[in-house]
């Protein structure tokens, strides 16, 4: 057992390297082969279910059941003045649809998600390429790069509120000293710049995660293929386009969908930066739901927005699993 143990731990300590499957000692293998492995799955079937039960029950009761609850909730109307739920059928959907707010929130959510995901993955991929080079600073940079991601979201948001401050912020100081603006700009207070400022802050906070995933994937790229591409006279860019990117197709697709889901759900950054303001300019689904539900006690309308975001997420999750299944098929071929 000893050698397995150390093998496994050693490979785990390689950090960015993928974990090697530990090889069983020859003696173990002989014993395993001597008996048909058929009995293994049957043995301890009771334990399988005992092990699974707590997780299944908890996730079922706290995530799937409330999802039904949200749909039910969307048929009942409540307000601050009248807190007793009243059945109103589809009236809340009509109300929400008819209001111009709904359209704006769909639009904001799209802009927010598309740009954060795009920049986060683009910058993440480029920095992964950069950190995949053998340079004196590489080791240190690999440690530092995750810092924004582990920083608590609320702290990150407060930090960027400060960076964007019209009088005291570093960004305005910088732009002023370059002469690009003639007075401090209140980035978060203007309807035309607030969303861009929020997107910038979210990208800064989120890109390191993509970097780490892409870095690990880059180290899985077949080195022989790259070497033969070099022999064929392929330059740096050609190698990336023709060898690296195709072999990372699956990881990139999965990561794109995953960051889309996480960004669409991301509440902390916008809530602390702007609370959805000014004039709804930065309200996205999660912040609007929170404001309607816990700010105005209009649980029904909040649930109506919730149902829409569940539908969007269901589509994205389906995409995620389709990509992953097709990925599994590519590998086994």
């Amino acid at each position, binding site marked *: 057992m000893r050698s397995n143990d150390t093998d496994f731990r050693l490979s785990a*300590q390689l*950090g*960015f*390297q993928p*974990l090697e499957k530990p*090889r*069983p000692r020859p003696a*173990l293998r002989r*014993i395993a082969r001597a008996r048909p*492995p058929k009995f*293994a799955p049957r*043995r301890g*079937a009771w*334990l*399988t279910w005992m*092990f*699974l039960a*707590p*997780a299944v029950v*908890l*996730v079922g009761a706290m*995530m*799937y059941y*409330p*999802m039904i*609850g949200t749909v039910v909730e969307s048929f009942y109307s409540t307000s601050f003045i009248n807190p007793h739920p009243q059945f109103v059928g589809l009236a809340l959907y009509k109300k929400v649809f008819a209001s111009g707010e709904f359209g704006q929130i769909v639009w904001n959510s799209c802009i927010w998600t598309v740009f954060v995901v795009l920049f986060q993955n683009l910058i993440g991929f480029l920095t992964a390429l950069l950190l995949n080079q053998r340079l004196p*600073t590489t080791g*240190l*940079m690999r*440690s*530092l790069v995750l810092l924004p991601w582990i*920083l*608590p979201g609320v*702290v990150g948001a*407060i*930090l960027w509120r*400060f960076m964007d*401050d019209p*009088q005291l912020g*570093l960004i305005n100081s910088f732009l002023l000293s370059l002469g690009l603006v003639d007075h401090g700009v209140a980035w978060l207070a203007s309807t035309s710049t607030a969303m861009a400022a929020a997107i910038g802050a979210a990208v*800064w906070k989120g890109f390191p995660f993509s970097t780490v*995933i892409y*870095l*690990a994937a880059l180290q899985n790229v077949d080195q022989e293929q790259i070497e033969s591409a070099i022999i064929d006279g392929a330059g740096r860019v050609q190698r990336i386009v023709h060898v690296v990117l195709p072999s990372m197709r699956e990881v990139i697709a*999965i990561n794109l969908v995953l960051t889309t889901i996480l960004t669409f*759900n991301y*509440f902390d950054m916008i809530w*602390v930066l702007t609370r959805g303001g000014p004039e709804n300019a930065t309200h996205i*689904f*999660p912040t609007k*739901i*929170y404001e309607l539900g*816990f700010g105005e006690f209009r649980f029904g309308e909040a*649930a109506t927005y*919730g149902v829409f*975001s569940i539908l969007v*997420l269901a589509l*994205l*999750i389906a995409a995620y699993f389709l990509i992953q299944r097709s990925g*599994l098929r590519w590998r086994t071929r």
Partner: protein
Amino acid sequence: MSATIKPLVGKAGLTLLQIALAFVILLPFFWMVSVSLKPPTEPFAIPARLWPQNPTLDNYVTAFRPEFRTYFVNSLIVSLSTVAITVGLALPAAYSFTRAQTRLVFAIMGLVVAAQMFPASAIIIPIYKMMKGAGLLNTYVSLVIAYVTITLPVAIWMLRGFLARLPIELDEAAAIDGAGPLRTFIAIIVPLCRPGIVATAVFVLIVTWQEFLFALSFTSTRDMRTLPVGMNDFIGQYGIRYGELMASSVLISLPVVAVFFLLQRQFVAGVTAGAVKG
């Protein structure tokens, strides 16, 4: 001649790019620490000065007020309980997930793992009402239940990545040596999975330490608030007393940053194992 110089120039250029990247990542951090060390009047200098002229710890002394200490203790209790319970539930579940290769288990666990992508905001109202009905609002229990639920699917997914790499022959050899299924799990699988457990625990800690939405909705009194919610309150209370705000930010970030740097290798291996290998 040029054949030896060219790669050197390229390397120097790339190193410069890495330094530029470090600058982009670290500048806001540096600014945070710098402002936290400035005496209350100094952040108002225009244009902003990067280095504090008269560094002082005054802001830390004022930031470490009694309510901050309460929030800190609350965060600690909730986070550590969540880490222990989540890992304790996820490890057996992930083990069964990898060992029982039946369609039913796969389907059920697929649903469990998919739950990590649910929008918390969309289901928070029914959960809030459930907690209210059970009389658990404004307690540690409500937060721990919510946090275990949101971290469990990811934890199972991460641990599955580790457990799938342990060969089934191990279980079979243990069975031949006379160990029952439960003993096999406790005596053989759990010790071998230590790196995975560490990585998962760090991940769960980072997630719960910063969780904001549930904490904001479920806690109504000051004595139950966690650090992120407390920080959010500080913004309004202090107006633009950024020095104190930045000092508390540094204090909140220190525990997770320290844990991360201590256990970094295992953590990164754990996060990427599930994502890259699928």
